[in-house]
C-alpha cells in the first residue's frame, strides 16, 4: 500500500496547518489560552523529549536489544521523580534571574561569557545531529509511504515549514508572562497525537493481529527464541550509557531545558510533571513491544525502526498508516521547533550579542526579534546541510548517541550549579574542553566522516556501533576529573563565589552593601540610555520599578541596589546574563571603596530569609526562629532604637522609634540618615559621627512642643561583626524633665512658705504690741477723733493678724505627720460649725447656707483643719454669690469614699483661671479682699487627708452659673458591733 507524493504532502501540510491554527488561536487569546497554564498541558509539552524516538527509534532498538530501549525513558523519568532536588533548584534560579537556557545558567553561575559560548557551541553541535535524526525519520517514513517522492524535496519542505512555524510563534515572547503560549499548546498537541497514535496501533495489533491478550500469550509461548520475545540479556554498558544520557537530558538538552524551565507556568506544574511525564513516557513506551511483535508476526519487511508504519501498511489500513506517519511528523516537528528555538536563543545571547551589542538601535526589541528569526533559519539550514552531507548516511541510533553523549558533557557543570559551589569557571571550561575533545575524536569524527584518529594512533580499541558507550564514559570521566582538579587548584573570583552561593541549594546570596554612582532611578535611565537608547532604558527602569512596587522616582540606596538587580535580571531575559551583567556593571557602577570593605546587605539577607520562612527545617528552622525572636525583641523594645551602617545607611528602625519620630520604618530603612527630615538628620547624623557615646537632655522641638532626648550610642563592631556601624538609643526624657521642673517650682514655693512663716512670726509680736497700745490709748482719752484713730489702728492690726495667721497656716501644711492623730469626724457637724463661724461676720448677711450633709457621714481626720477647709470654701462661695443666693453643702457615701459638694449660685470661675486657683497667692479678688492662700490651704489639707478636690464651673450641665467644689475623702466606717472581735484579731 502506498500513497501519492502529493497526497502525503497535502496530509503533512494539513496537519501543520492545524498546528499553526492552535498556536495562532492561543496567541490571539481565544478559549485555548485558558488551558495553557494547566499542568496537563505543561506535562504534555514536555513530551517533546521523546521526539521520533517514540515512534521509530524505540521500536528499532526494542527489536535489536529487547527491553534496553526503556533506558531512554527510565533515565528522564528518574530525573523527574527527583524533581524536588534536581529540577526545582534550577527552576528557582532560572525564574529568579531570568535565565532562559543552560548557557545562560552557566554564564550566570560561572560568571564567564566563555562558559556560555562553550555550552552554546556544544549544544549546537549536538542539536545538529538530533535535528538531522528528525529530518531523516520524516524523509524515510515519507519515502516508505510514497516511494516515488524525492526524500530531498520532503526534507526541504518539512524544514521550511518548521522554520516558518518557529519564526512566527517562537521568536516573540508573550509580554506579560514571558512564555510562548501558542507554541506550548501546539507542542502539547503534538505529544497528544504521538501517544494516541501509538496506543491505537498497540490496541489494533493486540486485538486484530493476536486476537487479544490470550492470543498474544500463545504466540509468545510458540515463538520462544529470544530475538522474537524481546528476552535478550541487556548490554550493561550501552544500557548504563543510555540511562545516564536520558537522565542528563532533563537538564542539558536545549529543548528540554527550554520546555521544563523557560516555559514553566508555575512550580506547581513542575511538581505535577514530576510524575506526569514518567506516566506519559510509560504510555508511549507501552505499545513498543506490541509493535515489534506485530511486525514479526506479520512478517513486515520494513526496517525494524519503521515497524509502526510497516505494521499499519501490512494491516492494509490507510487511515492507520497515515496516522502513524502524522505521529512521526508531529514528533519530529515538535522536537525540531523547540530545539531550534532554544538554540537560537542561546546563539543570540552567547555568540551574537557578545560580538555585537545592539547600540544605536531604534528599537532593540525588534532588532532582537529579527536576529532571532534569522538565527532560526540559519540553524535549520545548517541542520539540513548536515543531514544531506553526513546525517542521512548514519543510523538513527548512532545519531542519537552522538547527540546525547555530546550534551552529556554539560552534566557535571549543571550539577555543579546546584551542588558544588566550589566548582569554578576555570575547572568548568577545562573539563568541558577535555570532554568535548574526546567526544569529537571518539564519537563525532569516526562515525560522521570516518576519520578514526584512534586507529591511526594504533590504539587497541576503536569506536564502533557496539562499544560507543565506552567512549561516552571515558569522555565524561575525563571531563569530571579535570573539572574537579582545576576547580580545586585554582581560586574563584569573589563575584563567582557570590553567584555560586546564590545558585547552590539552600544558600543565600549575601550581597555587599555598596553605594551606587547613580543617586536616583532617574539617573539609572540616563546611565542606561547610553547602551540601550533613552526609550528602552526608560521602559526597562519603569518595568523594574513597578515589579518591585517602588515609587516612580526612588532615592533610597537599598532600594536602588534592588532596582539594579532587577534591571539586570530583566535585561538578562532579553539579552542573556553575560551581556546584561556587562551593561549593568559598566553603566550602573558602584562608587569606589573608600576603605577596606563594606558591610553585608543585612536587609537584603533578611528579606531573603523571610522568603524562605516555611522552607527552613531542623536546625536552620530553629536558628531562624531565634533570629525572629531577637528581631522582635529589638522591634518591640519600648525605647526608640535604630542601627546605622558605617556609611550612614539606616539598617533598623524599631516601633518605638517610629512612634517617636512619626516616620515609618518602611520609609527609612535602607536610606541614608541624610534622607531623614532636617531636625532628625541633624541630630542623629551629628551624634553618629561624633566621638561622644552619650548625649543628655538634647532639646528638640517636635510638632511645636519641646522634647528632651537622651542619646546613647554603641559601636556594632566586634569579633563576630567586623563591618562596623553603630546602634543608637533615643530616650524621650520630656516627661521626666517636666516633672523635674514642677518639683523645682514646688521647692521654691515651699521655701517662700517657710520664709513667710518666719516673717509672720516675727511681725506678729510687734503687731500685738501695737494693738494693745491702741487699746490703752482708747482707755486714756475721750477725744472722739483719737478714739476713732485708735479703732482704726486696732482694725488694721486685726487685719495684719489675719494675714499673718493665714501665712502661718499655709506654712504649717504639707506635713503628713499628723495623720496618726486623726479621729472620726462627723462632716455634718464640721459644716455646721463653719456656717456658724461665718455667720458671725457682717459680710454676706443675705446669703442662705444649707447643710445637707448626712449626719452619719464620717471621715477620719483633724476636725479643726476640716473646719478650716469648709470656712475657706464657704467664704469663697459667699463672696462670689449674689445677694439672696443659696449655698448648698451636700454629701454622700460612694463606696469607700465620702463625697462632699459645695455648690453656689455665684458668677463662676472662668475656664482659664481654673488651672491656677490652687496655686498659692493666686487670687481674683480685689487687693484688700484676700491673700490668695485660701484654696491653696484647702488643697494642702485635703491632700493631708488623702483626698482630692475638683472644681467645676459652671456647677452643672444645665446651669451657666455657679461653681461646684467636690471633695472626695476616704470614708470612715465605724465597727458595727464593738464587742465582736475579728477572728484573726488577738483577744
Amino acid at each position, binding site marked *: 500500500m502506498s500513497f501519492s507524493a502529493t497526497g502525503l504532502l497535502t496530509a503533512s501540510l494539513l496537519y501543520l496547518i492545524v498546528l499553526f491554527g492552535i498556536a495562532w488561536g492561543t496567541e490571539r487569546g481565544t478559549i485555548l489560552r485558558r488551558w495553557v497554564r494547566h499542568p496537563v498541558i505543561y506535562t504534555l509539552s514536555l513530551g517533546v523529549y521523546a521526539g521520533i524516538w517514540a515512534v521509530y527509534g524505540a521500536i528499532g532498538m526494542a527489536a535489536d536489544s*529487547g*527491553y*534496553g530501549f*526503556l533506558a531512554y525513558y*527510565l533515565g528522564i*523519568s*528518574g530525573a*523527574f*521523580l*527527583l524533581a*524536588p*532536588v534536581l529540577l*526545582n*533548584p534550577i527552576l528557582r534560579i532560572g525564574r529568579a534571574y531570568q535565565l532562559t537556557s543552560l548557557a545562560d545558567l552557566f554564564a550566570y553561575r560561572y560568571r564567564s561569557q566563555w562558559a556560555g559560548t562553550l555550552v552554546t557551541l556544544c549544544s549546537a553541535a549536538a542539536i545538529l545531529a538530533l535535528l538531522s535524526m528528525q529530518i531523516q525519520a520524516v524523509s524515510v517514513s515519507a519515502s516508505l509511504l510514497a516511494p516515488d517522492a524525492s526524500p530531498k524535496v520532503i526534507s526541504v519542505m518539512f524544514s521550511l515549514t518548521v522554520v516558518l512555524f518557529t519564526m512566527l510563534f517562537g521568536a516573540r515572547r508573550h509580554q506579560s508572562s514571558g512564555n510562548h503560549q501558542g507554541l506550548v499548546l501546539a507542542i502539547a498537541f503534538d505529544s497528544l497525537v504521538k501517544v494516541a497514535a501509538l496506543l491505537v496501533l498497540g490496541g489494533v495489533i493486540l486485538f486484530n493481529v493476536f486476537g487479544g491478550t490470550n492470543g*498474544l500469550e500463545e504466540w*509468545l509461548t510458540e515463538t520462544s527464541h529470544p530475538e522474537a*520475545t*524481546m*528476552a535478550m*540479556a*541487556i548490554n*550493561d554498558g550501552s*544500557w*548504563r550509557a543510555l*540511562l*545516564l544520557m536520558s*537522565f542528563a537530558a532533563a537538564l542539558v538538552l536545549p529543548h528540554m531545558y527550554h520546555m521544563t524551565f523557560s516555559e514553566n507556568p508555575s512550580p*506547581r506544574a513542575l*511538581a*505535577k510533571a*514530576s*510524575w506526569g511525564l*514518567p*506516566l506519559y513516557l*510509560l504510555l508511549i*513506551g*507501552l505499545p513498543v*513491544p506490541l509493535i515489534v511483535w506485530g511486525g514479526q508476526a506479520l512478517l513486515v519487511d520494513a526496517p525494524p525502526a519503521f515497524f509502526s508504519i510497516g505494521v499499519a501498511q501490512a494491516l492494509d489500513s490507510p487511515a492507520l498508516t497515515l496516522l502513524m506517519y502524522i505521529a512521526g511528523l508531529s514528533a519530529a516537528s515538535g522536537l525540531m521547533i523547540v530545539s531550534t528555538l532554544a538554540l537560537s536563543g542561546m546563539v543570540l545571547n552567547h555568540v551574537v550579542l557578545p560580538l555585537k551589542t545592539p547600540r544605536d538601535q531604534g528599537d532593540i526589541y525588534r532588532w532582537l526579534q529579527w536576529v532571532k528569526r534569522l538565527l532560526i533559519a540559519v540553524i535549520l539550514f545548517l541542520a539540513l546541510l548536515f543531514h544531506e552531507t553526513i546525517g542521512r548516511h548514519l543510523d538513527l541510533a548512532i545519531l542519537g548517541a552522538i547527540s546525547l553523549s555530546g550534551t552529556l558533557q554539560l552534566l557535571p557543570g549543571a550539577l555543579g550549579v546546584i*551542588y558544588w559551589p566550589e566548582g569554578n569557571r576555570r575547572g568548568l571550561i577545562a573539563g568541558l574542553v577535555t570532554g568535548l575533545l574526546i567526544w569529537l575524536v571518539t564519537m563525532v569524527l569516526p562515525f560522521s566522516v570516518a576519520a578514526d584518529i584512534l586507529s591511526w594512533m594504533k590504539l587497541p580499541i576503536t569506536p564502533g556501533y557496539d562499544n560507543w558507550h565506552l567512549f561516552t564514559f571515558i569522555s565524561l570521566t575525563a571531563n569530571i576529573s579535570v573539572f574537579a582538579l582545576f576547580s580545586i587548584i585554582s581560586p574563584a573570583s569573589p563575584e563567582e563565589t557570590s553567584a555560586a552561593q546564590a545558585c547552590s*541549594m*539552600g544558600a543565600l546570596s549575601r550581597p555587599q552593601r555598596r553605594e551606587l554612582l547613580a543617586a536616583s532611578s532617574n539617573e539609572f535611565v540616563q546611565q542606561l540610555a547610553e547602551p540601550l537608547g533613552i526609550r528602552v532604558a526608560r521602559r526597562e527602569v519603569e518595568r523594574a520599578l513597578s515589579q518591585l512596587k517602588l515609587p516612580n522616582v526612588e532615592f533610597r540606596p537599598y532600594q536602588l541596589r534592588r532596582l539594579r538587580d532587577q534591571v539586570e535580571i530583566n535585561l538578562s531575559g532579553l539579552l542573556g546574563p553575560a551581556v546584561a551583567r556587562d551593561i549593568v556593571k559598566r553603566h550602573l557602577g558602584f562608587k569606589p571603596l573608600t576603605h577596606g570593605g563594606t558591610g553585608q546587605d543585612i536587609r537584603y539577607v533578611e528579606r531573603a530569609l523571610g522568603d524562605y520562612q*516555611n*522552607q527552613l527545617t531542623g536546625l536552620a528552622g530553629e536558628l531562624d526562629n531565634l533570629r525572629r525572636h531577637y528581631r522582635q525583641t529589638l522591634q518591640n523594645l519600648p525605647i526608640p532604637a535604630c542601627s546605622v551602617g558605617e556609611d550612614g545607611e539606616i539598617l533598623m528602625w524599631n516601633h518605638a522609634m517610629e512612634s517617636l519620630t512619626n516616620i515609618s520604618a518602611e520609609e527609612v530603612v535602607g536610606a541614608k540618615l541624610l534622607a531623614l527630615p532636617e531636625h532628625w538628620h541633624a541630630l542623629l547624623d551629628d551624634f553618629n559621627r561624633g566621638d561622644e557615646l552619650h548625649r543628655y537632655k538634647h532639646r528638640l522641638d517636635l510638632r511645636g512642643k519641646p522634647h528632651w532626648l537622651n542619646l546613647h550610642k554603641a559601636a556594632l563592631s566586634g569579633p563576630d561583626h567586623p563591618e562596623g556601624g553603630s546602634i543608637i538609643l533615643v530616650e524621650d526624657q520630656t516627661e521626666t524633665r517636666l516633672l523635674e521642673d514642677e518639683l523645682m517650682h514646688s521647692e521654691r514655693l515651699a521655701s517662700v512658705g517657710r520664709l513667710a512663716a518666719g516673717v509672720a512670726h516675727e511681725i506678729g509680736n510687734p503687731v500685738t504690741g501695737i494693738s494693745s497700745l491702741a487699746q490703752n490709748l482708747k482707755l486714756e482719752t475721750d477725744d472722739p477723733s483719737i478714739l476713732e484713730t485708735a479703732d482704726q489702728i486696732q482694725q488694721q492690726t486685726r487685719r495684719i493678724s489675719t494675714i499673718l495667721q493665714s501665712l502661718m497656716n499655709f506654712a504649717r501644711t504639707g506635713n503628713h505627720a499628723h495623720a496618726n492623730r486623726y479621729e472620726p469626724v462627723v462632716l455634718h457637724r464640721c459644716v455646721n460649725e463653719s456656717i456658724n463661724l461665718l455667720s458671725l461676720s457682717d459680710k454676706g448677711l443675705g446669703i442662705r447656707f444649707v447643710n445637707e450633709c448626712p449626719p452619719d457621714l464620717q471621715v477620719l481626720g483633724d476636725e479643726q483643719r476640716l473646719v478650716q477647709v469648709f470656712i475657706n470654701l464657704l467664704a469663697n462661695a459667699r463672696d462670689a454669690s449674689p445677694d439672696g443666693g443659696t449655698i448648698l453643702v451636700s454629701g454622700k457615701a460612694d463606696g469607700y469614699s465620702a463625697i462632699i459638694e459645695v455648690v453656689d449660685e455665684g458668677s463662676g470661675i472662668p475656664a482659664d483661671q481654673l488651672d491656677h486657683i490652687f496655686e498659692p497667692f493666686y487670687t481674683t479678688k480685689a487687693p484688700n479682699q484676700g491673700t490668695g492662700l485660701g484654696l491653696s490651704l484647702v488643697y494642702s489639707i485635703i491632700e493631708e487627708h488623702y483626698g482630692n478636690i475638683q472644681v467645676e464651673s459652671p456647677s452643672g450641665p444645665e446651669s451657666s452659673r455657679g461653681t461646684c467644689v467636690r471633695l472626695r475623702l476616704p470614708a470612715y466606717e465605724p465597727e458595727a458591733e464593738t464587742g465582736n472581735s475579728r477572728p484573726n484579731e488577738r483577744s
Partner: protein
Amino acid sequence: MYIYRLVFLLVLAIYIFSPNILDWWTSPENAWYSPYVIWGGLIAIGFWLEWRRDPNEF
C-alpha cells in the same frame, strides 16, 4: 545538604544496579508487561509523594 548526599548515594546505587534490576523486571517468568507494572508503581509513589508534599517545601 545531608539529605541530598543520601539521595545522591541512593541514585548512584540504583544506577549501578539498574541492569540487574531490569533483568529481574524482564525475566522470562514474568508477564511481558511486568516492567510497566513496576514502572507504574514507581509513578504511583511519585504521585503520592507529590500529593502529600507541603506546598512550601523545596
